[in-house]
Structures are given as structure tokens and as C-alpha cells.
């Protein structure tokens, strides 16, 4: 068949398919057109193959290639209802990923909580140690934050109580930024995540040890225990995600480094997605609950301990059911 006849015969179908694809791209598909989309798409692919094989001219082939590519993009796109996906992720996907990646998570926890505990103990025994991490000014302002005489405690104590919004914004900006850095720098063969995990562990440990030693433990621990359940876990998970990236580069196994990295990134980003959700919750608790001074220390510690139990229970058991939605 000559090209002109071929075009005349099929032009109408191509036109209709192009309109259909445009409607799909805009998200307003016609029900009737969608029903025979697969058939139409295969038709376009067949016409393209024919056109190439019969040596039709380049503009025609290019036009058909574009139609086929656009059809391909709509036909094979990764999409499902966003809300359903999110719920599935929170209930099953995220905790299941954490459990499946228990090795990275264990290493990251050991690095972070290990350095934190060690530094806290060392600071109690050797008080001067804190000045190797922080300047005298920083130590003074930190002591000021958690002074039991304050009406409001925490990093925002200098402002007054109407500033919940300011705090919420600050915590989101600051903490999620730290988590992102901890994750992304894992691409440097895991060194970045290692650094940020140890750095944050040492820093928090030094502060905790110092404040406990000088007798501010009630204000400090009651402040951090609530949101710490989510925030510290999130830092560990972001670090675990980063270490996973790094280990794919160091020991790619039987894959090429690029392929190993891509496989690892697919898993890591799920860990990080969960960490982001945790950090939003943490910022909320930190701004509206932890910094409040009208609550008694006992209440805060009890609720805080319950939150830790909740987080651990959620990560260990959620989504284990046989009929859990995927």
C-alpha cells in the first residue's frame, strides 16, 4: 500500500487517539474512548511498525512514534488513588519496610543511640567534655532554655506562648531538613549518614548529660520524651535509609553499582517517607504539647512513655495481619 492511501485510511483513527490521549493527560477522559484505549494503542503500534517496515517517510513515522509514546505513557503510568496509597503505606508498607530492613535500622540505631548514651554518661562523669562540642555561649543559652524557673521550656522559651505557629514552622523546617541531609548524604558511600547520625547522637547526648548533671533533668526529660519518640526514631530511619544507599555502592553484590543503587533507593525512599510523616507528628507534638508548662511533669512523662511504646508497637506489629491491604 502506498503511503498516501495508508494515511487516508487511518488518519481518522490517529486523530481520535490523539484527542483521547490529550484528554487522559488532562485527567478528563471520556468513558467510551477509554474502553477501547488498549485496542487503539495496539493499533497505533501496529501502524508504526508497518510504516517503518514499508519505508514510509520520516514525518509520518515521527508522528506515529509520538502518538505511540504518549499512549505508552498513559497506558503504563504508575498510578492509583493517592489516599488509598497513603493509607496502605502507613498501615502496611512503611512498618513492613522497616522490619524488612532491620539490619540497616539496627546499625543506624546502634550508631545514634549508642553515641547518645555514651556521650551522656561521659558528660556526667567529665563535665568539661561538653565544651569540646559547644561554645560557652551555646551552653549558657541551652541552660537558659531548660531552666525550671521558665514558664515555657524548650528552644523557643525566649518567645511567648502565642508562638505555637512559629515553633511548628521552625521545627518542621529544621528537623525535616536534618533528616533529609542525613538521608541524602548517604549517597557518599554512607559516610554522610554516618557523620550526621554520630554528630546528632553526640550533640543530643552531651546536652542531655549536661542538663541532667546540673539538675534540670525534670524540665529537660519531660520536654523531650514526648516528641522524641517520633523525632529520634525518624532520624534513625533517615540514617538507615542513607546507610542503605551507601552500602549498595560499597557492596553492590552481583549487580552493577548503578542498578544496585536504584534498587536500594526504591526501598530507602519508603523509609524516608515514613520518617517525614514521623517528623510532622513530632513537630506538632513539640510545638503544642512538649513546650506547654501547664501540664505536670508526671503527665508528660507518662504520655511520652506511652508514645514510645506506641511507636515501637506500630513498627513491630502493624501490617503483619494476613488480610492487610497492600
Amino acid at each position, binding site marked *: 500500500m502506498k*503511503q498516501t492511501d495508508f494515511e487516508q485510511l487511518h488518519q481518522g483513527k490517529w486523530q481520535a487517539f490523539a484527542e483521547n490521549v490529550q484528554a487522559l493527560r488532562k485527567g478528563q477522559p471520556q468513558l467510551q474512548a477509554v474502553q477501547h484505549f488498549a485496542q487503539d494503542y495496539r493499533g497505533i*503500534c501496529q501502524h508504526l*511498525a508497518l510504516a517503518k517496515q514499508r519505508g514510509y517517510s520520516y514525518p509520518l513515522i515521527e508522528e506515529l512514534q509520538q502518538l505511540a509514546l504518549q499512549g505508552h505513557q498513559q497506558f503504563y503510568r504508575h498510578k492509583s488513588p493517592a489516599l488509598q496509597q497513603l493509607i496502605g503505606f502507613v498501615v502496611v508498607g512503611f512498618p513492613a519496610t522497616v522490619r524488612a530492613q532491620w539490619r540497616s535500622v539496627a546499625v543506624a540505631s546502634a550508631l545514634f543511640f549508642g553515641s547518645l548514651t555514651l556521650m551522656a554518661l561521659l558528660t556526667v562523669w567529665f563535665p568539661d567534655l561538653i565544651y569540646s562540642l559547644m561554645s560557652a555561649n551555646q551552653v549558657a543559652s541551652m541552660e537558659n532554655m531548660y531552666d525550671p524557673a521558665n514558664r515555657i521550656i524548650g528552644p523557643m522559651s525566649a518567645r511567648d506562648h502565642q508562638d505555637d505557629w512559629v515553633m511548628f514552622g521552625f521545627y518542621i*523546617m529544621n528537623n525535616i531538613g536534618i533528616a533529609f541531609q542525613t538521608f541524602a548524604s548517604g549517597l*557518599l558511600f554512607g559516610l554522610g549518614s554516618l557523620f550526621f547520625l554520630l554528630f546528632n547522637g553526640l550533640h543530643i547526648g552531651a546536652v542531655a548529660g549536661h542538663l541532667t548533671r546540673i539538675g534540670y533533668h525534670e524540665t529537660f526529660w519531660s520536654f523531650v520524651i514526648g516528641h522524641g519518640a517520633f523525632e529520634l526514631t525518624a532520624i534513625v530511619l533517615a540514617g538507615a535509609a542513607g546507610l542503605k544507599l551507601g552500602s549498595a555502592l560499597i557492596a553492590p553484590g552481583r549487580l552493577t553499582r548503578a542498578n544496585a543503587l536504584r534498587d536500594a*533507593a526504591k526501598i530507602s525512599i519508603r523509609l524516608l*517517607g515514613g520518617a517525614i510523616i514521623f517528623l510532622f507528628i513530632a513537630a506538632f507534638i513539640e510545638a503544642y504539647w512538649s513546650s506547654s508548662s501547664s501540664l505536670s511533669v508526671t503527665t508528660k512523662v507518662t504520655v511520652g512513655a506511652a508514645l514510645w511504646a506506641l511507636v515501637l508497637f506500630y513498627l513491630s506489629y502493624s501490617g503483619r495481619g494476613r488480610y492487610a491491604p497492600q
Partner: protein
Amino acid sequence: MNANLTSAPLAPGALLDTQVYLETPEGIDLPLRPAGLPVRFLAFAIDALIRSVILILTGIAWLYMGKLGAGLASISTFLLLWWYMVFFEVLNQGRSPGKQLLGLQVIHSDGTPVGWPASLTRNLLRFVDLLPFAYCLGILSMINSSRFQRLGDLAAGTLVVYQAQAPQRGALPEVPARPASVLLTLDEQRALLDFAERHQQLSSQRQEELATIIAPTLHIAPSQAVPGVHAIARSILGQV
């Protein structure tokens, strides 16, 4: 997912270029054109400009809103810094405003529009591409990769390609069709077709020059070289 991307050209003797071919389950090869460093730098610069304008304008608005404004200011900075690219890429067919202006698009390496996990991965790992300064690692990775992928793209399995433009089809010159007096192979037929279809882009002297080379083989009189080749092209196409 990536195994079906080949950089081997389809037709033997195809030009050496940056095009990569995506083999689909339907058994056809679709060409993709990865975008290189300069155009992506420009797209990034446009996005940076848009972001700073938004930041300044909203910053002024927040100033008048007191403490609520201060909170909103850090939240909006956070969104612009980390989420601007992700939101646009996922919700606008893989195109941030800068990319859209320059006709670029982010896609998975299987050709489909980029989704949440991949977009988040590539944009968070931008932090490493930035190191040690001015995107050094990203640039090294891009010029070292046949598909211009920075580290974030490599990890996320994405690439930035030119969006295909609708091809311009010029009408063939108006001469009566005449079948060729010799048997032509497909490649030869297509070469003659290309010559006729591009007649508006070639100067008449150049057309003359090219047609004169081929005229004796096709048994066309040298004086009638150009219209003669056009006539054969029309008959190949099936026009009268």
C-alpha cells in the same frame, strides 16, 4: 525496568546522537532525547528565579501577619526549598515551570511520567549533587553518563528528556508523479522522499547540486534533475 532501554541505533548507519530507544512490550522502539547540561542549567535557573520571587512576595505578605506569618514563613521556605520540584514534577506531567518553558520533562526510564517516590528520591539527592559546590558532583555525573543523569537521576531511575514537538510536514512540490524506471530499495526510496519533503529547507542551488548527482542513475535528463526526482518521490508516496 531499565533493561529495555538501548542506546544502539535502530537502523544500521543511523547518525551518532544522544537519542536512546525504549523497547515497549508491544515490540516497537520509541526514541527518547535526553536533555543535556546547558538546557537543564537554564531550566534550573528559571526555577530558581521563580522561587526567589515567590519567596520575596510571600515574605512581604507574612511580615504583615505577625506571629502566624513567622510560622508560615518557615513553612513556605521549607516547601519551596524541598518540595517545589517534587509537587510540579508529579502533578504536572514531570515538568517544573522552568522545564515546561524549555520543553523538558522528567520520566521514569521506562518512559512513564515520574511518580512520587522517584521524584522525591531525585530531588532529595540533589543535596549530594550540589556537593562540594555549584553542582560539581551532579555535573560530573551528567557528563559521564550517556543519558545525562545526575546522581539523583541514577538512584531514582529517572531521566530528563525533551518533549517531542509535533513534526512539521511540508507539502511535496506540485509536479506530476512519475514512477522510477529502476527498482529502488526501501532506503533509496526514503532518501528520495526526504529530499522532496525538505525542498523548502534546501536552497535551489543545493537541490540542483544533489539532484544532478543522482539523475543519471535514475535515467533523468540533467536539465530536469530536480523536478524529475520530485516526480519519483510523489509516485513513491502514492500521490498523482
